[in-house]
């Protein structure tokens, strides 16, 4: 594992030109996340329709290439997913970043999995894992409609 794997083209591409970097009109769920160590900030907006489908997802924020790419790729994949599927995807992704060598879910195809796996480079950089997971934890907060700001490093 080396830097080239961490800063792959796909990450640089999403990091420099994040997709869905905007604010969903008429969003009905949202949450803010903050990584105090790095100063990474993300605010996730969701529009969930009556069938519990995510009809739109977007984010605002600033941070390092890893955190921006992660939020960008994540929001791309979550569109049109059902609430239940979102939960499964988040869990599977966090599991992969933590310890699992691959993603197990059947919800997304191999091509999409490869995109997410590009973030697995942070495993070699323990201080950077939080950059990759911030958007995902924040998405969970938004789904649960928890008012509390998601903090990758909780303190008062």
């Amino acid at each position, binding site marked *: 594992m080396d830097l080239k794997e961490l800063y792959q083209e796909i990450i640089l591409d999403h990091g420099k030109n994040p997709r869905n970097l905007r604010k969903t009109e008429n969003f009905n769920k949202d949450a803010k996340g903050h990584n105090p160590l790095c100063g990474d900030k993300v605010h996730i907006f969701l529009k969930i329709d009556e069938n519990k489908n995510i009809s739109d997802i977007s984010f605002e924020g600033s941070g*390092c290439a890893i955190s921006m790419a992660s939020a960008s790729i994540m929001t791309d994949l979550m569109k049109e997913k059902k609430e239940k599927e979102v939960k499964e995807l988040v869990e599977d992704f966090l599991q992969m970043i933590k310890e699992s060598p691959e993603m197990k879910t059947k919800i997304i195809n191999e091509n999409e999995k490869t995109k997410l796996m590009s973030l697995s480079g942070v495993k070699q950089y323990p201080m950077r894992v939080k950059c990759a997971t911030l958007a995902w934890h924040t998405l969970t907060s938004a789904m649960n409609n928890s008012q509390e700001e998601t903090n990758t490093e909780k303190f008062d």
Partner: protein
Amino acid sequence: MNVNNIKKQFPIFNNKVHNNDLVYLDSANSSQKPQMVVDRIYDFYTKEFSNVGRSVHYLAVAATNLYENTRTMMQKYINAKDPNEIVFTKGATEAINLVANTFGQKFLREGDEILLTELEHHSNYVPWHYLRKLKGVKINFAEINNDGEITLESIEKSITPKTKMIAITHLSNVTGAILPIKEITSLAHSRNIPILIDGCQGAPHLKLDMQDIDCDFYAISCHKMYGPTGLGVLYAKKKWLDTLPPYQGGGGMIREVKKEGISFGDLPNKYEAGTMATAQVIAFGESIKFLNQIGIENIEKHESELTKYGEEVLRKNNSVKLVGNPKNKGSVLSFTLDGIHAHDIATILDEDGVAIRAGHHCCQILHDKLGLSATARASLGVYNTKDDLDKLNESINKCKKIFDR
């Protein structure tokens, strides 16, 4: 002064980082330790260990003498009037908490004001913040100018009739600005206001003379002075240590303890409750020796030349923006790179063995003011060379290459 010989005294440089020589540019965070300091800790624990100030046996007496010897060395090093003006703490953070807590308890009332600056490290803000809730005091911040400096005028403008304490940094750990602390102290005293200097970044790099500066309090972290972690020094004028209440209670700081009440011990014991960081204090004596062997004037000269060189090299690099441009600047080079976040810079530099810090450096107020969420910071110590700064610049160029793909 021969940097190569000095560098050889630091065993850390015998190690490789990612198969590269270590280029350590994070001394503002914490400095590396010379062999003599490391050895002193080992020797103390293997040959001389005992708790201090309690027992009368041979080892206890010897350890107590060694411990007190560092106090006297420190008194001389910063030219304090009296060794009892040196209080050992766990760090600058505890030193500032000690003053905020005891001074706040005794002298501050609702509506009183404390004057800080926008440059302050969280450890010279948060301890005062507690007094907002506890006492209803107000905190004001003297503003920086466009160069990231705090001038005497900026402090003067911010003083009000309600200002009861001024607490400012000696040297900014972000912009590198060195504050005119002697002039500010004299201004404060002309208004009858005591002043605390956060000397974390001053003490390792600048010649200190407490009687000349005349400040009331000066806080130091020993781990930034080529000394052990877990140790700090609070310099305080004796009149304050005599008047302020004790900070923590426990063994060693009392005179008489009865069920009805307690009387407190004399200085310096009054502020050193419980078993102290004995080995660290004794080893810190070696750090002072180390600094004296080189001579602080030589250190100042070496680091100031290096800082100028570093500024030059980074200014020539078009993609680098230096943070702050103070006329009187300590050995801190904070910067940003167009389109590359500080944490990505730090990770990429690390691969080359170049250790810098990225983030807000515990100065969120300053970063908010500058409109930056994070900066990259290279900071220098006595062991750094021009070669280190060239390597920094090379690695920065590598960052750009990676990101411009």
